[in-house]
């Protein structure tokens, strides 16, 4: 200690007064218009969408085989014809109706299962066991069974959608609850919260990033299960949804309309993902700083 201090040469002290910030250049300055526009995710994504559409159009024109691969413009025309002249809109509504029904029921089941899981150890074991058993099972594989149990129609589709939503949502919610920091749990109990108010006011908001992930995954699973199920047995249900629309038009070799059906599925998916879930995220987890 001592010899280090002696070995070092003494240096003079330096004292300065900082000058006022107004006397030199930039302390804070707004970004340029271009920087601000390219900072908006929606703008960047829209640009990518336009690019994809252009590539599609060019490739399809060069291929020049509307039976195999219609152009983007033909698809868009078929889409608008289907919406305004045909029954594409009602088909989409039918599909969405069934989807929302199954999705809501699936989330309700997941909520019940998760509450059982967090209140007892056996419940946790049950949830883990059921999830590992049924999560890998494709929902569509249950369709033949569902047809026997619930007959042809909405009932069996709702059943397979519940199956596809339930496990993803329950698993994510449960792991979200487990990841809530111990400090936050203690804070909640310090307030005198117990039971359901404790779950609703502490656990659910704190686990919201995981819950939201579960909801998104569940949504995608439900959507693809629905279309697949409609494709399989749309034949026998008179007022089928989008899957049935695709199937029907394929049989009539109306390939642009098949593409228009797929296009509708994609558009609805994009809207839900980029508008509904995005707004939900912005209002919750991003605002709270739980997710950047």
């Amino acid at each position, binding site marked *: 200690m001592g010899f280090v201090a002696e070995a070092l040469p003494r240096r003079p002290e330096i004292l300065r007064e900082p000058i006022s910030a107004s006397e030199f250049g930039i302390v804070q300055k707004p970004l340029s218009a271009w920087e601000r526009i390219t900072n908006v995710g929606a703008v960047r994504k829209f640009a990518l969408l336009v690019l994809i559409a252009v590539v599609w159009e060019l490739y399809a024109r060069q291929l020049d085989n509307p039976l195999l691969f219609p152009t983007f413009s033909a698809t868009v025309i078929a889409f608008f014809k289907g919406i305004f002249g045909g029954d594409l809109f009602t088909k989409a509504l039918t599909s969405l109706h069934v989807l929302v029904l199954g999705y809501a029921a699936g989330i309700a089941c997941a909520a019940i299962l998760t509450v059982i899981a967090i209140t007892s150890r056996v419940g946790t074991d049950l949830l883990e066991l059921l999830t590992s058993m049924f999560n890998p099972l494709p929902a569509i594989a249950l369709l033949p069974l569902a047809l026997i149990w619930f007959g042809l129609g909405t009932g069996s589709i709702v059943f397979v959608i519940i199956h596809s939503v339930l496990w993803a949502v329950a698993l994510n919610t449960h792991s979200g609850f487990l990841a809530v*920091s111990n*400090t*936050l749990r*203690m*804070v909640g*109990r*310090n*307030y*005198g*919260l117990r039971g359901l*108010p404790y779950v609703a*006011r*502490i656990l659910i*908001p*704190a686990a*919201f990033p995981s819950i939201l992930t579960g909801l998104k995954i569940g949504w995608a699973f439900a959507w693809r299960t629905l279309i697949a199920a409609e494709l399989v047995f749309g034949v026998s249900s008179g007022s089928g949804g989008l899957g049935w629309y695709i199937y029907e038009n394929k049989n009539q070799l109306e390939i642009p309309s098949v593409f228009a059906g797929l296009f509708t599925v994609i558009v609805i998916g994009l809207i839900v993902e980029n508008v509904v879930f995005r707004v939900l995220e912005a209002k*919750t987890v991003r*605002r*709270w*700083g*739980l997710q950047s």
Partner: protein
Amino acid sequence: MTEDQNIGPAGPPQGSNCAPSGGSVDAKRQGWGDHSLPLLAVRGVTLQYKTKDHLVTATYRVDFDVLRSDRFILLGPSGCGKSTLLKAVGGYMRPIEGEIRLKGEQVTRPGPDRMMVFQEFDQLLPWRTVKENVMFPLRSGGRLSRKAAEEKALEYIAKVNLTPFADSYPHTLSGGMKQRVAIARGMAMEPDILLMDEPFAALDALTRRKMQDELLALWEGTRFTVLFVTHSIPEAIKIGSRILLLSPHPGQVKAELDSLPQGASAAQTLALEQRIHSMLFADAIEEPAPAEGVIA
């Protein structure tokens, strides 16, 4: 079962002073306003907790009394069970022996009459603004109307100098500001006792010094009772009015001392620091004693 036995050498606590359960709350509060009666009585408390493969005794037959308006410090090296002791007072764990009484009533579970300030910065609810965080415990259980809670929250936020940030979310605040919100939240509830678990330990040294001064200034204003856990001797001397020294593995009471009055000289502070140091450990302390006076 030994739970109901009174093992502490101090004898049974003021049993005759216990108001019958169901009696008027006001009468009870007035009874414990008297400075001579302990607000918090800890008697022969032994605490154990289980890790994955061990049963650990954290404290062994600890006794102490906290009087109203005390700034009571639990001081000791890591492993002396001071945080566990604080958790037990908070009601998060039950002693396997002895008892903890707050205003004569046995502590059995966590409750808002013993607000806790934790060391961690994530103790604020991220989904609520600063104001809503302070309001939340005031509102929950229908204690106060929305308006009354808001007024009280803003009053305490002003006390910790955070009025401009009342509508900010916690993730936009610095560590010291978060701790100030947590302190405001605890104080706004006007609890019987404020429990602080090393609230400044995760702060940088400069902020820490500032927060200590602020806490003392707040105490001058309202004279709340606080039970404060720390492993820093200078902090204990600066913050505390009374200091309980605990020895490690398991935690046992080594001494209970009065701290120095405010405005004590640097030499007195240093002397007490060294005395506590020699009583507690032979090895190093974490925060070296500053050369100049701590309380100038």
